[in-house]
């Protein structure tokens, strides 16, 4: 079900969307999605996981990161800091008891909640891939660019990468950020079976994988 939640932003409180399965049950899972393209590639998998969790008696909320998906906030105004503030606000608003962060979501999730991080990714690895996509696209267009110069430019002035206008703060933040997990359990792809859907160039789905993820969370949340 779609719901809205109040999210702090540079122009005050903005309404953001979340996909919510809420029946006021004791375990309430906040899901922090991956960043950039991986968010789109994993969306069907995550919502299928939410359906499965619902069937296993667990509430879940998948909020938009400000500037992403349905958000009306400006992407260029975002940083890892703004996403951390937003996810902390979502956790409070929905009274989350647990958290699941995927991939780059592990850079911005509320660390005070117990829970899980799925194949967490370093910020520098995310940035490297975005820079590489830009260098490749430039090469196809007959222009020479290189990652080192682009990174320097991005850290000082911001940069457009893969269709996203990244602020200087976001570039610098990604370059330095490592997954924040503190005692949350790391889930690996091999724990779920199947193939990693965030790699897929076109979004895919794998109900068996979503079911495995939901079962794992349900078992460990009640343990």
């Amino acid at each position, binding site marked *: 079900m779609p719901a809205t939640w109040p999210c702090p932003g540079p122009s005050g409180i903005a309404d953001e969307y979340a996909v919510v399965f809420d029946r006021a049950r004791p375990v309430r899972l906040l899901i922090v999605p991956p960043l950039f393209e991986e968010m789109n590639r994993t969306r069907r998998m995550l919502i299928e996981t939410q359906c499965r969790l619902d069937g296993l008696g667990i509430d879940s909320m998948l909020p938009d990161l400000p500037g992403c998906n349905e958000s009306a906030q400006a992407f260029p105004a975002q940083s890892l800091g703004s996403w951390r503030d937003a996810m902390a606000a979502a956790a409070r608003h929905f009274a989350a008891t647990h958290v699941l962060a995927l991939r780059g979501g592990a850079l911005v999730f509320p660390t005070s909640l117990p829970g899980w991080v799925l194949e967490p990714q370093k910020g520098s690895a995310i940035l490297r891939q975005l820079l*590489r*996509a830009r260098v490749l*696209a430039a090469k196809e267009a007959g222009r020479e660019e290189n990652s080192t110069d682009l990174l320097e430019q991005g850290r000082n002035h911001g940069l457009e990468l893969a269709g996203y206008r990244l602020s200087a703060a976001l570039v610098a933040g990604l370059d330095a950020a490592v997954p924040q997990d503190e005692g949350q359990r790391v889930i690996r792809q091999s724990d779920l079976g199947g193939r*990693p859907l965030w790699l*897929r160039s076109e979004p*895919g789905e794998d109900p068996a994988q979503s079911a495995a993820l939901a079962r794992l969370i349900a078992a460990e949340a009640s343990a």
Partner: protein
Amino acid sequence: MTLTDQTDTDLRSLLNDVLGLGAARVAAMTADSGLFGALPELDSMAVAGLLTEIEDRFDIVIDDDEVDGDMLGTYGDLLTFITRKRGEA
């Protein structure tokens, strides 16, 4: 299994992860099967993801200026490139 055979198997598996073509279509690829420029799924973002995964799974480092049509044009080109890089390591 030789190193090259294993690299071939691992590369097909990785291409299947990125392209989602299914194991059968990936298994049917030959050295002449076109990649970059031949498969619409392989845009610059997908190639960037593919290269990053190649670095992780094959434990090699790929410089920006090594990436071009000679390296990514066909399945055989890419396999040759990775095999050579692994030999240098």
